[in-house]
């Protein structure tokens, strides 16, 4: 049995290894290795996508090894069980919501690696950090153990910190600091939440009941979902006195605490208003290929975590808070849209538009049904491609004009027809034009939400008007209108730049025309999740 998932997650390390062997002045070779190394996980991801779909088993691929076992004070519990330990498993799986997100990550990363040709300084260390970041991102979307997930989640912070801080624009260091501190805070909350969950619901008896059994604390996701889903039999499996070592399990107060911690921790990443200010700086200060990853993939980690490690574990809490989630989503949508409408800097406009779009993910989650969740995942994937395309184009724009301020640009369609056309297409995708990926995502989110909270879905429709308002304002101001004389000499788009843009455009159109490419692989996972939600009611 070949460990495909491990190969996928760690395949970028091949590139890291090769890069470290090449002297840092061989820039061309370094770039080739960097790009080639990002193609490796892309190929593997495609292979796995094809494999899983041909086999027709959404969660067939899974890898699990015992990894860390920390023995606990056995004397305290001696007569009842043989051993007592805290274990972390190395557990990867492509089921649940993972597959489309993994494929999206691999595509966006490869395109961002290609777009990194604009990076001129310290290419070697850039690509090393870049590939390390990819490992973290892929790992996040496949980990099935709370602590493994947490490790990958943290892993992404370090390369990201350096990528922003070294290769960013003028205020890069401040932005990198802000990023690290804010996300570190989120991670701390996440860790607390995970510890609460493990201590309260992560206890299980392995082996036969009685004196020869093993009592294990673990952050195994499947086990936790199972145990919380069927509380009574969970209690029954524990040896009588063991419950005294586990005084919190199932308590309402701890459940609510864990929920709120998770909401804030993932909410910072998502981001949820008012925890969004850190990402504005990253959008403006980080180099554009890194923003492609940040806006395209890293924000999705928050949304993904919220569903896979929040909703699945604590469905009751989500159900009783669904109205609040919907309101937060609506606030995100409207707040982001209004702010995007008045921005003068295109990158800030896009940052606020991300906040607005992530609101639809929250609406989809608040729907608590398969339609809404499908919509949420579609929105994650779709927004990943759209914002990656946007920032790729912004990068090309910055290369040429040196500015991405809306009020300084204008009439670029004349000199840069290809780039302008794609910018317009990205804009249309972003405002939810049918035939492009954003439409079905937003439709399903609202459709699902209407089944649960009709008023919220109708209010969400407002977001669809507002997105047209701010997207067209920004995109048309840049591409349409009379050409400024300063830009009369701009060079047209080159094939090298065009390639990743074409790939991303193709993905956007493909999902728009055939949304089933995203919905089918996650159908089983979502069905299970709905089952859990309904059982919890």
């Amino acid at each position, binding site marked *: 049995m070949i460990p495909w998932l491990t190969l996928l997650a760690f395949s970028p390390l091949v590139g890291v290894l090769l890069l470290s062997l090449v002297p840092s002045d061989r820039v061309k070779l370094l770039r080739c290795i960097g790009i080639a190394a990002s193609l490796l996980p892309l190929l593997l991801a495609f292979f796995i996508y094809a494999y899983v779909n041909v086999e027709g088993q959404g969660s067939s691929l899974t890898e699990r090894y015992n990894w860390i076992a920390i023995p606990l004070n056995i004397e305290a519990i001696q007569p009842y069980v043989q051993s007592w330990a805290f274990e972390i498993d190395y557990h990867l799986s492509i089921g649940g919501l993972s597959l489309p997100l993994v494929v999206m990550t691999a595509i966006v990363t490869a395109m961002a690696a290609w777009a990194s040709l604009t990076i001129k300084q310290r290419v070697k260390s850039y690509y090393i950090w870049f590939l390390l970041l990819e490992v973290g991102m892929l790992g996040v979307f496949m980990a099935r153990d709370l602590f493994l997930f947490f490790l990958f989640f943290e892993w992404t912070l370090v390369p990201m910190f350096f990528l922003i801080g070294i290769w960013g624009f003028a205020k890069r260091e401040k932005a990198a600091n802000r990023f690290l501190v804010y996300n570190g805070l989120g991670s701390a909350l996440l860790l607390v939440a995970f510890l609460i969950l493990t201590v309260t619901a992560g206890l299980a008896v392995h082996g036969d009941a009685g004196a020869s059994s093993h009592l294990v604390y673990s952050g195994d996701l499947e086990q936790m979902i199972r145990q919380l889903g069927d509380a009574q039999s969970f209690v029954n499996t524990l040896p009588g006195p063991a419950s005294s070592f586990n005084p919190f399990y199932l308590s309402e107060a701890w459940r609510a605490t864990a929920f709120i911690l998770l909401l804030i921790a993932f909410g910072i990443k998502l981001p949820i208003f008012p925890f969004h200010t850190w990402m504005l700086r990253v959008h403006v200060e980080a180099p554009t290929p890194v923003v492609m990853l940040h806006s395209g993939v890293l924000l999705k980690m928050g949304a993904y975590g919220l569903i896979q490690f929040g909703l699945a574990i604590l469905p009751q809490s989500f159900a009783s808070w669904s109205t609040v989630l919907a309101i937060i989503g609506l606030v995100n949508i409207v707040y982001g849209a209004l*702010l995007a409408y*008045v921005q003068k800097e295109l990158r800030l406009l896009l940052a606020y538009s991300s906040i607005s779009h992530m609101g639809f993910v929250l609406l989809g989650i608040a729907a608590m049904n398969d339609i809404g969740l499908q919509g949420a995942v579609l929105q994650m994937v779709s927004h990943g491609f759209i914002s990656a395309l946007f920032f790729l184009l912004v990068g090309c724009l910055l290369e040429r004009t040196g500015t991405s301020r809306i009020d300084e640009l204008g009439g670029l369609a*004349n000199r840069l027809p290809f780039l302008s056309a794609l910018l317009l297409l990205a804009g249309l995708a972003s405002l939810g034009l049918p035939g492009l990926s954003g439409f079905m995502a937003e439709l399903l989110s*609202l459709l699902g939400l209407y089944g649960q909270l009709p008023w919220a879905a109708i209010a969400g429709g407002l977001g669809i008007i507002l997105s047209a308002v701010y997207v067209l304002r920004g995109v048309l101001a840049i591409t349409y209108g009379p050409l400024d004389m300063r830009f009369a000499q701009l060079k047209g788009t080159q094939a090298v730049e065009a390639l990743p843009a074409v790939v991303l455009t193709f993905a956007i159109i493909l999902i728009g025309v055939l949304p089933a490419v995203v919905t*089918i692989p996650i159908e089983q996972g979502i069905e299970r999740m709905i089952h859990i939600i309904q059982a919890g009611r």
Partner: protein
Amino acid sequence: MESVYAQYVWAVPIAPLLAFLVLTLMRCVVKGSAAFIGVGSSLIACVLSILILLERLSASTNVYTVNVEWLSFGAVHFELGYELTNLNALMLVIVTVVSTLVNLYAKGYMADDERQTVFFAYIGLFTFSMLGLVISPNLLQLYIFWELVGVCSFLLIGFWYERPAARAAAKKAFIMTRIGDVGLLIAILILFWHMPNHALDFQSIGQVFASVDTMSQYGISAGLATWIASLIFLGAIGKSGQFPLHTWLPDAMEGPTPISALIHAATMVAAGVYLVARTFDIFQLSQTAMLIVASVGGFTAIFAATIAIAQRDMKRILAYSTVSQLGYMMLALGLGAVTAGIFHLFTHAFFKALLFLGAGSVIHAVHTQNIFQINGRGRSMKITAWTFAIGALALSGVPPLSGFWSKDAILSAAWESNKLLFAIGVVAAFLTAFYMSRLFFIVFTRAKRVHTEGTDSPIHESPAVMTIPLVVLAVLAVVAGFVYTPFYSGFETWITGVAASDHTNVIVIIVSTIVALSGIGLGYFIYGPNGVREDRWSNVIKPLYHLVERKYYVDELYKLFAVYPLKVLGKVLDVFDRYIIDGIVRYTASCTVQFGKLFTRIQNGQLQSYGLLSLYGFSALLLLLLLLGKGLW
């Protein structure tokens, strides 16, 4: 009889789609033959749709549906496909005929434009989307194409992207129609959750909303039906430029004139009327919704007609006329006269496309759209002038041209159900005749006055490639009306599927004829070759004239009550975000730092201060112990 051509309905939209793909993806290869590809593809679609229409006229009246599963999970089963009804078949012919003629016309009109390929590609995409809309078997697919025609309209309005006016108009068109679109979207959300099996196809809708009984049987209350119908109508208001979302349509005239003829006169703007007709079952069950449709339609008809009287831009006059005529169609639908509404859509498509193309022909020659600058210079363009006259007469409702018959059908329906709406219809008809004669006489007959600026170079007739479509459309504008006269109701039976009686109403015929002729007469009196000067009468009613000339200040009201508040709110929130939200974050961060600094100061490396601190600490501990009262030893 077997349906031979009906099974190839899918090929009708595919032909223009292929044209679009070829023109977009192989732009460099096909550069020279863009117009050829455009005309060819639409001609194929046109021939096929005519064959389909003929087949349906001769025999089968059953609905022909094909569906393919598109997206399916859980309760969601979205399908794509096509459906052929008599109404659809008629719409297919309208769209493809106008599209073919406009493609042909554009070959001449856009001959000098270097972005011709893009232009024909966009037209291909539009024609595909419009045909896809027409043959949609369910509301979701209709919505998809509804949005796509909207975006094509947007792209083509902004075709000359370097003009700031075109940019503004394109943006406005998209946003204004989107406000309506959201209404339609919400209607879809409601229907999805209340229809049995979450069905969104028109046949199921027809079954559920067949009567009040079936509706309540499926648990849909009358109030809900009113909401659904009204929300669908909101979509139609946006697309068909009805009050109060009409402001985008006149601005849309910034686009190339062939586009105005195709999209903003004949086809897309009529999609709203088509939508209401297609979902008419829902409307029929709600008196309130019907009243809303009729009132909005009637009001728009008269409202836009008054504006058209005082405009100076040739295309804008026609645009307001379109808004007014679409209001007429809505009025008909609101009165329950679906056939009359569709019939007016049918005739209007031809004569309004004709008028726009005629206007384009003049504009192409004289390079201005201001009628007072044209000032009779259109006279030397014989074919354009004559065909334009035919179009104008048809629009004014002069018998026996097509516009007369369709207007008559609407007015007879109004006469029977609502005399107030009848009166509104008559006044609107009078105004229509008046502004059309004003337009015609100023552009084509006025004596040349010396003071007009611009060159007095001779004006030539447009090339044949542009005049042929004019002639064809002129013929259609004359004959299209005989499909459905007061004396022959086969058309109504064919469209609705219910046997209908003739609607001969002599009073209405006489009234509408008199009204049309008197409107033209008044126009001739004021604007004819020997007419009085315009300012003479406009001075008499100056405030009113000014109000109409400024389009009742609707744009200004939107600016005041929607655009500015949004901008101000955004700005306020921007400050809030920057200084309050981010301020709190910064403050928290700096607090932490300050706190840290406080304790850094203690670690200053001086032995004395450490000693002092230890002493303080020791005393504090002692004090604590004493206070707790446990004693020292």
